[in-house]
């Protein structure tokens, strides 16, 4: 019995398609609605805000939104922060994963369970003291609080993913390199990392998305508007132009477009990341 047969007994094929098409439309309409609204001129929005398809589509909302608040600046800040955290997460996460996957040392397993347990820890439990630490270090209104965690392994899930991948690389590769005189660092850099492209790409993607999306962090730590990221810049935009939805939608698209474009370029790494976590096919 194939998977196809499984359904034909109960549902007809066209019924399945109808359900899927209906669902896909429901999931896609918000995007269309956002885009369509962003294409309306202020006059058209004022006279006919609810119409799905604009009669005279215009692009002017995008440059307007972009310049009404310094979005170039916000974008630059966000790119700087996300690029740093993404690179740092991959490097530090793979180092830590190397330690956990290739070495025996005292307390290794308890420490690893501790690492896994932190995945379930609600951020609120550490948030306030961490804020006080950064305040003590005079790092409020700097990017240090936002990028520092990436240098410490970049999160338990990332470390876990890379470790799982390292475990699937035969240890003989390391040993062969070490016989040729490679140091442990060289094994990590020249043997493991080159073989781990897919998992590192997935980790980079997840780190990027996490930081791009980050709202609460910048909200807590950044005060000067010139240091804002796109996410709080967008929130500021809402405060100023909240009812001009044609502009708010254009500004929202500036925030979401990079992630969507990234998805279309790197689709397989998104899905591979899920498989690597051991939740998918083995």
């Amino acid at each position, binding site marked *: 019995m194939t998977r196809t047969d499984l359904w034909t007994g109960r549902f007809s094929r066209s019924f399945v398609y109808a359900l899927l098409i209906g*669902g896909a439309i429901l999931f896609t309409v918000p995007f269309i609605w956002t885009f369509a609204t962003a294409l309306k001129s202020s006059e058209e929005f004022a006279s006919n805000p609810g119409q*799905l398809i604009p009669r005279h589509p215009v692009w002017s909302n995008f440059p307007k939104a972009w310049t009404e608040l310094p979005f170039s600046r916000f974008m630059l800040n966000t790119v700087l922060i996300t690029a740093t955290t993404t690179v740092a997460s991959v490097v530090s996460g793979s180092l830590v994963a190397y330690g956990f996957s290739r070495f025996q040392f005292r307390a290794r397993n308890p420490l690893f369970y501790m690492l896994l347990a932190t995945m379930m820890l609600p951020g609120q439990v550490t948030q306030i003291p961490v804020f006080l630490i950064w305040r003590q270090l005079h790092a409020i209104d700097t990017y240090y609080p936002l990028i520092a965690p990436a240098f410490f392994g970049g999160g338990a899930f990332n470390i876990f993913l890379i470790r799982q991948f390292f475990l699937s690389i035969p240890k003989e590769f390391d040993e062969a390199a070490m016989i040729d005189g490679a140091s442990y660092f060289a094994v990590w850099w020249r043997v493991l990392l080159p073989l781990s492209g897919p998992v590192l790409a997935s980790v980079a993607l997840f780190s990027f998305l996490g930081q791009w*999306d980050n709202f609460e962090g910048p909200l807590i730590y950044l005060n000067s508007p010139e240091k804002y990221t796109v996410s709080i810049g967008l929130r500021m935009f809402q405060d100023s132009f909240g009812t001009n939805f044609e502009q708010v939608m254009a500004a929202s698209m500036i925030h979401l477009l990079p992630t969507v474009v990234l998805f279309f370029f790197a689709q397989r790494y998104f899905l591979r990341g899920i498989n690597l976590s051991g939740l998918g096919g083995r």
Partner: protein
Amino acid sequence: MRPATGKRTRRRLTDRPEFWGFLFICPWLFGFLFLTAGPMLASLYLSFQRYDLASSKFVGFENYRRLFTEDPLFWKSLKNTLFYAIVTVPLGIAGSLGIALLLNQPMKGQRLFRTCFYLPSLVPAVAASLIWQWIFNSDNGILNSGLHLIGLPGPQWLQDERFTPWAFVLMSLWGVGGARMVIFLAGLQGISESYYEAAKLDGAGTWVCFRRVTLPLLSPVMFFNLVLGVIGSFQVFTNAYVMTGGGPNNSSLFYALYLFRNAFLYLKLGKASAMAWVLFAILLVLTFVQFRTSKRWVHYEGGDK
């Protein structure tokens, strides 16, 4: 002699693999100590203080007592959050499993469908909140236009406290449904065809196959989605902060939002820390219960993982 022995022990240390293993995990260990474990203890300590950055005073269990007995907003935010979790987690899991089952067949356009369902989970939370604020707009939003089209009255989604909780449910189903669906789909594709063939030989029909093969083999994925779904739903913050700010009449004041206000708006850092520990305790209990009951329904293939 002395320098020689010193040199020898030093060399011996770097010769030992354990030293290197420990060295490599040091970045994480450092972060764990200073950004997780230490702050956890500090937060527990703070929860017994009255602290506003300027002065601090030890007050024992006063913060907790006040939360439980004198703070109606604490209970309201907890109730809102519980409702949100109880509705979104099962609905979300059932919905995304349903879509994954439909998609898990050789069919035309599978990739396109998968993309359509997955894309919303990539939309940053602030942008998503603004988009939904406009969708929920009671006069011109597309949701009410659609409802009018089929003859239903459109409610004031974000202004009427009877409907705000449901607005957040709808938005969450759109936002995380696709991500869960992809995880389920990966799990479904990992189930070997041979199980279905064997079941067929024993005369099993569609329902029996689903009930006796698909569900048990998918249960670890389901469990993962359940545990992380509950934890995630208790921390909903950005959506409420941006879309409603907690209103109207605190009907969308979720726990994390109220905690944030206490911490960073009112600077009641002791009270906020107490709230964080209450949240942690609730999640610990819920996670523990899920792990305990999981033995009854989560099936690990071959017991190897």
